[in-house]
């Protein structure tokens, strides 16, 4: 397999100027889309920020060794098949490359005929054209704004999983895992299986969720999630203490984490900790689709914005498809199927397969998708994070980690007239740091909605601009001075980011 990787791996200097399709993201969705497109004979390029294919769930799977199978589970191990299928295909692959912009290309009569995608890798930037683009940029862990969540020693549970998958690092010392979500017990079980000694799992799932989820139990009872969930719960409960109905969670310490505090059974508790791993579910990473101008809507079950896509995964922007957890959380299996469907849709747009063939090939995929989605609604309802964990009550809690903006400041800015996230940005610079709102966007929307007694869908989200990742001076200098390049870069300069960043981006 290593040979396969070497054969088609490309540094960005070696990429062609134009492809039929560029797929961004090498998780199950992007890998499947790229494989499907390459099979249809589309000239396909897959770019991904990581060093190896796999995305979040199958991270580093091509480097995995038999011990990892036991530790990370069969589901992880299965990712090798998806990655190998892709590596055997004729698609080109640019690892360690970030996509930071996408701009439509128009013909003389103003029709969109493709897009130009900005890529950067290893200090170099390029603009590459494609007739179709598929964004499969996945999900990120939902913000978990509790007092002290910025202290060194507090990380996400997903971060610890990444350290385990890529560097075989296991949490050591006094470790506390806290939160909710279908992945919480998976992450806890994987870390315990790898040898972490976890002092406690603090489960923040609200009691009332069980009642709400109950209505959706039939789908869940016939889904594979039931057996899997019970097995994971069993592993975790046997090996550590699980404390339920946790509220008022906080991290404490000077200059770094020392203790975790919480309430349960009407009493306050505290526990010394070297490492606190937080997780309350995953949400679509909408930065790219938002900046590209795709229409988004509020998902009232998953409590997040998600881009609108049609039955072929096409977004509201011509020539731009979106697939996988970036369009709403459906899990890895659904992401892979969606990737295939998006691939068929694009191949048909490119004229490589006839609509009838596309439709025929999609039938079994849609059946599998329906099966893969079974039980999701139950999980969504059961693991919906409690309001106090989404809309922090304590006014000193930091919401925007980059600019260090607190709950109190945001509430005050709303009372001073900031009606939505974009006005609030002007008041406070909240969301204007290098993470570009990824770690505060949803909290800000819900916080403003709460303060104004409105629905989050009326409040909206940050309006984002390219580049969605800060570029380095030398990357900018390497770009050809085309109109789109200038627009991509200058549009963002108008929106004064972090002073540090601004310095970085100023063209010479």
């Amino acid at each position, binding site marked *: 397999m290593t040979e396969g990787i070497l054969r088609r791996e490309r540094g960005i200097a070696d990429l062609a100027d134009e492809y039929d399709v560029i797929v961004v993201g090498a998780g199950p969705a992007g890998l499947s889309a790229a494989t499907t497109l390459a099979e249809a004979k589309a000239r396909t390029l897959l770019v991904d920020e990581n060093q190896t294919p796999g995305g979040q769930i199958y991270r580093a799977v091509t480097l995995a060794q038999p011990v990892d199978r036991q530790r990370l589970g069969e589901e992880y191990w299965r990712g090798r098949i998806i990655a190998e299928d892709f590596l055997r295909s004729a698609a080109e692959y640019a690892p360690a490359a970030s996509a930071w912009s996408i701009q439509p290309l128009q013909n003389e009569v103003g029709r969109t005929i493709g897009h130009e995608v900005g890529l950067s890798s290893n200090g170099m930037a390029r603009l590459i054209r494609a007739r179709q683009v598929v964004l499969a940029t996945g999900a990120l862990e939902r913000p978990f704004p509790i007092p002290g969540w910025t202290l060194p020693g507090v*990380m996400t549970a997903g971060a610890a999983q990444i350290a385990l998958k890529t560097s075989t690092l296991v949490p050591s010392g006094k470790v506390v895992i806290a939160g909710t979500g279908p992945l919480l017990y998976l992450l806890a079980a994987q870390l315990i299986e790898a040898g972490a000694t976890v002092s406690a799992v603090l489960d923040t799932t609200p009691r009332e969720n069980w009642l709400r989820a109950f209505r959706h139990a039939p789908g869940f009872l016939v889904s594979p999630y039931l057996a899997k969930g019970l097995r994971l719960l069993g592993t975790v409960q046997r090996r550590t203490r699980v404390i339920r109905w946790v509220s008022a969670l906080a991290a404490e310490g000077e200059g770094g984490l020392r203790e975790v505090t919480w309430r349960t059974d009407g009493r306050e508790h505290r526990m010394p900790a070297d490492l606190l791993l937080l997780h309350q579910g995953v949400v679509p990473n909408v930065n790219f689709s938002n900046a590209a101008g795709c229409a988004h809507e509020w998902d009232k079950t998953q409590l997040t914005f998600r881009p609108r896509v049609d039955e072929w995964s096409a977004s509201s922007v011509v020539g731009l498809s979106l697939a996988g957890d970036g369009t709403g959380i459906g899990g890895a299996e659904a992401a892979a199927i969606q990737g295939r469907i998006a691939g068929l849709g694009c191949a048909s747009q490119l004229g490589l397969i006839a609509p009838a063939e596309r439709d025929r090939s999609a039938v079994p995929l849609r059946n599998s998708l329906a099966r893969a989605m079974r039980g999701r609604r139950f999980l969504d309802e059961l693991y919906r994070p409690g309001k106090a964990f989404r809309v922090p009550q304590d006014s000193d809690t930091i919401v925007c980690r980059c600019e260090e903006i607190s709950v109190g400041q945001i509430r005050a800015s709303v009372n001073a007239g900031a009606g939505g996230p974009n006005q609030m940005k002007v008041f406070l610079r909240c969301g204007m740091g290098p993470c570009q709102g990824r770690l505060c966007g949803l909290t800000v929307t819900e916080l403003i909605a709460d303060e104004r007694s409105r629905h989050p869908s009326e409040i909206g989200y940050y309006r984002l601009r390219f580049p969605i990742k800060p570029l380095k001076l030398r990357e900018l200098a390497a770009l050809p001075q085309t109109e789109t390049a200038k627009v991509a870069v200058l549009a963002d300069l108008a929106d004064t980011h972090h002073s540090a960043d601004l310095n970085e981006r100023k063209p010479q």
Partner: protein
Amino acid sequence: MFRRLSDHASSEVTFTFDGLPVTASAGDSVAAALLAAGVRACRTTPVSGAPRGPYCMMGVCFECLVRIDGMDNCQGCLVTVQEGMKVESQRGSPTLATEPAQ
């Protein structure tokens, strides 16, 4: 905070963090290598000077920013550590002057 399992064979790489030598495994990200070496905080914030360390390890939070071979604002979790690499903690807001000349 983290310890390394010894069941994956991998060669060693040596780099420096704030001038001190650190040994990592080939293929580690800079952020993972620092965590393995017991470094919790790798930067201070430009606003209050508070210490911060890697939070997401997947490129979204920008808490892992460090200076690598003289270049500021590098996301440690996305850069693979190399032999002889010079990594420094990032103090507050770096200036343009620290960007190496072209």
